[in-house]
């Protein structure tokens, strides 16, 4: 699972959960898969991403080094920042671990890099 995927995931579909975002992330196994950097793509991507959630997730798996707490004013010109963002969103992958709903504590396993977001019928509306 790339952190880009994590950035969109939410457990709001669970019964009684109002936001379910961002999901807490624990990695027991991760890897880095090199992927060609494209500054334009990262620039297009950032407005769709919740940066705070992205940084928190990166931090929780020890990959936040060099990521500022907030996106600076001139971020589009800052290639170093764009490269770091590229790495953390597209290259780092959690292969084994779990996600956790911040409200209900429900855990979702990540196996072979796939987060399993299925829930039992009694857990959903």
């Amino acid at each position, binding site marked *: 699972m790339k952190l880009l995927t994590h950035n969109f995931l939410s457990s709001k*579909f669970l019964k009684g959960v109002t936001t379910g975002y961002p999901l807490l992330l624990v990695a027991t196994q991760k890897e880095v898969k090199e992927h060609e950097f494209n500054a334009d793509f990262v620039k297009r*991507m950032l407005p*769709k991403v919740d940066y705070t959630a992205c940084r928190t997730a990166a931090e929780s798996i020890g990959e936040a080094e060099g990521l500022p707490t907030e996106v600076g004013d001139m971020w589009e010109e800052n290639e170093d920042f764009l490269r770091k963002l590229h790495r953390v969103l597209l290259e780092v992958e959690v292969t084994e671990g779990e996600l956790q709903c911040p409200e209900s504590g429900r855990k979702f396993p990540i196996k072979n890099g796939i987060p399993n977001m299925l829930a039992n019928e009694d857990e959903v509306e």
Partner: protein
Amino acid sequence: MRRHDPDVTVSESPTNILYVGNSGVLCGVQWEELEAVFEPYGPIVDICVFPTGRPYSFVKFESVEKAREAFDALHGTHPSQVAKADVVFYLAFITNMPRSTASTDQEMPPGLKVMEEFVSENEQQKLLDVVATCSNGESKGSLKNRRVFHFGFEFLYGSNTVNLDGPFPPPFPPICEALIDRMCQAQLVKHRPDQLTINVYEPGHGIPSHVDTHSAFEDEIVSLSLSSDVVMNFRECSVSGRSVAVRLPARSLTIMKGESRYAWEHCIASRNYDCDPASSRLIRRSQRVSFTFRKVRRAPCECEFPQLCDRNRDDNVKKLPSSDTEARGLEKTFVANVYEEIAAHFDETRYSQWRAVKTFLDELASGSALLDVGCGNGKYLNEDIRLLKVGCDMSANLCLIASAKGACVAQADGLHLPFRDGAFDALISIAVIHHMSTVERRLVAIGEMLRMLRPGGTALITVWAFEQKMNNEQSEYLKWGRNRESLVDRPEDDASAYPSGALLVHLNNTAFQQQDLLVPWHRKAPTDGASLANPQSDRFLRFYHVFKRGELEDLCAKIPHCRLIST
């Protein structure tokens, strides 16, 4: 020719046999046309044709002189009888027709037997007289492609079953009882038949591909062919691809039992000519009459092919769900589990992108975030530097396949999407919600999808359509089926005759009989042949609700803040 038919020798001087280049079905020349081209030049003894593979034919005349006249007139020309333009015949004299052209894999379906000359000429005439009497009487039925008469029990074409409650058609004609005695004495049948269907086929008529309903009849199906030879095509239900053409000569008896009866479809193509599978000789059909004898089954079918059996072996599953719990169970068995199982083969067959989807994606603003609900093997999640793509699918195996291609995916249920509200600018869901088995669930699925979109976002949702004809033109789906099997439509079935709520097993590439059905997925047999020992394991049934025109629009209309852009 030297490669395909090495035993055929070209002659320097004229002979009575012509090689006709560019005259095969491959070149767009019909068998009718071929005969019409050469007939004017004198008596023809034989025509040798090839349904596939070879672009030529052979024509044998009575005399060298006639062959030479045909050669002189037709060599290097486009014969006027051939409809396809630009076809030019190239002729040569040859000394002999090929000895045998039978392909090596023409092994008969297990349990099928054709007994030649089962009745004498004299008996054939008596049987045809019976038919003539029927034609004058009142016990007459007529289907789109043939005339039928029933004896013993009436056969119901709506449900493909027998009417056990009457009214009963007349008992068997006496001559048939004598024939049945002969079959029983020769131990060709275990059960004495009590139902007879006489079919009268005019040239050009056929019968759609079918398996005789398991529950309606006992094991042996016995059919007498009269008046004309015909070629019957058999196709194995469970492993796709294996098909066998079998010539049924006039006065022969065909016995289908065991695997050939339960696990093979059979059909007769609608055409005027056949090609003898053993000799490749062209056979012109004349009127053909068949007497099919069957024994009505009184006890539940216990065949060895439960997955192919119309009897519901698992009592509550193959019915439309009556509650949400049942719906979940049905979708688990007939959707989720199947995709999990067939994921690898599904991936091999799903690579080209539909043009409509590609256009939708191409028209999205650069920088759009896209969600693909039911992304399958991720064929629309390929890298596109203009778009940020995320997908989800119910199947873990399909997610793994998509993920291995680099896609961002999560395993999720379309009824409970695990993404933040309004996070996406656009969404696609291709061929997904027709797998949901109640209208409520289909509605929830669309609602969930729209919850993922920002205000003003757009979604593209596609489903299978019930109507497979537009402006009287058959869809590609039906055409593909026609090309594959050169079949006629499955004609007489009437969905209203099926028991309510029962899910029919759909015959692929034919018109849909009802909106809710089970569609087989045939997984290709592994090349090592390991699966052949257990043929049913390669067929999987998927639940589909095929949408009638306007139905998807009606669903969308029920969702607040949803505006239909186009359909």
